[in-house]
């Protein structure tokens, strides 16, 4: 058995990749899957912060890639979800330390031990992001319903389909999933954000879920918990829904918050305007 590699990517920074990697990975682990989160954002190290394990990091992903530590020394097990592990990244190593051979070897080892290997990609389209998506079987493209974010998501989807190992080897393409995060009713209503239907239409990718903008994300990261841990919060539910949809379990369409549905109708006249803006930008 080899584990499935899921890369969480976006092109743009600050859209919610790290939050999603932790929350989605935890949601899979809460269903009993063995999950390892790998932080590819060299120099910024924040997956460990979001999960409240920063003090437990002794050896990291880059130590293992460069052969300075064994995988078993660097894997950190979550204290609350016992099938969830993290391979943190370092704040000090050079970005170029992520070599193709080193990363391939670590991912290969992880695939033997875990059901799912989740790669948290850095922003941008440079080396780190390419390394994070190279081994992907699935790509979760995180996108806010804003023009610049959609454009970057589109560009990264292009790299997913052309620059992955699967593409190079001519295998079945990487499965692409779209996750809309930081979705804000209010801002869709006043026309500052695009309705979900338009985002999906522009990106022509399968929608995995809609994560609302919520204080619960900040609360969770302040307490070092993945945002999906508390199923009683709006984001907790939304991330768990995304996980069940990933397994093909939720046949009903994704529920857009009520206010947003109204907004979708009201914002129709805006559509042409936003689209033109999108074209122009």
């Amino acid at each position: 058995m080899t584990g499935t590699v899921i890369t969480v990517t976006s092109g743009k920074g600050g859209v919610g990749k790290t939050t999603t990697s932790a929350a989605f990975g935890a949601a899979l682990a809460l269903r009993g899957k063995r999950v390892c989160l790998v932080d590819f954002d060299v120099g910024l190290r924040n997956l460990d912060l979001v999960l409240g394990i920063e003090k437990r990091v002794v050896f990291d992903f880059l130590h293992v890639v460069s052969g300075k530590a064994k995988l078993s020394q660097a894997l950190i097990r979550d204290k609350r979800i016992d099938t969830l592990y993290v391979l943190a990244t370092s704040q000090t190593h050079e970005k170029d330390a992520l070599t193709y051979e080193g990363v391939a070897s670590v991912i290969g080892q992880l695939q033997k031990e875990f059901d799912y290997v989740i790669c948290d990609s850095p922003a941008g389209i440079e080396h780190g992001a390419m390394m994070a998506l190279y081994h992907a079987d699935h790509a979760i493209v995180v996108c806010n319903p804003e023009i610049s974010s959609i454009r970057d998501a589109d560009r990264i989807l292009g790299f997913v389909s052309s620059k992955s190992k699967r593409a190079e080897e001519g295998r079945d393409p990487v499965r692409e999933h779209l996750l809309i995060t930081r979705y804000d009713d209010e801002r869709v209503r006043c026309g500052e954000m695009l309705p979900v239907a338009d985002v999906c239409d522009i990106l022509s990718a399968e929608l995995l879920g809609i994560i609302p903008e919520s204080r619960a994300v900040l609360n969770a990261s302040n307490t070092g918990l993945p945002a999906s841990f508390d199923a009683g919060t709006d984001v907790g539910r939304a991330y768990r829904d995304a996980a069940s949809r990933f397994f093909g379990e939720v046949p009903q369409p994704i529920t857009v918050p009520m206010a947003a549905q109204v907004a979708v109708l009201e914002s129709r006249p805006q559509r042409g305007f936003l689209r033109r803006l999108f074209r122009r930008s």
Partner: protein
Amino acid sequence: MIVNHPVRSGQKIYAAGSDLVILSSVSTGAEVLADGCIHVYGCLHGAAFAGVDGDQKARIFVKSLDAERVAIAGLYVNGLEFSEEWIGQPAQILLADGYLRMERIAR
């Protein structure tokens, strides 16, 4: 040449010496080019250049027009010049009497 995946922003596809058939959408910031005709069976948001090597009989066919730019045999028009009623409509673009002409096609 047949492409059965979306052509994304930043990507460029050129069908040398033939027609180009795209079974999906072409994103804003993407370019599709062909020496022959171009058919887009999704939405054309990006740029399309047909008859690149000078064929004035080349045409562009789209299921939904929202292009940034279209050109035939080097003669081009910017998408911003399309009037609103054409946006999102199925159309063909051809060269007639030295001008680019847009025509509705069956919907």
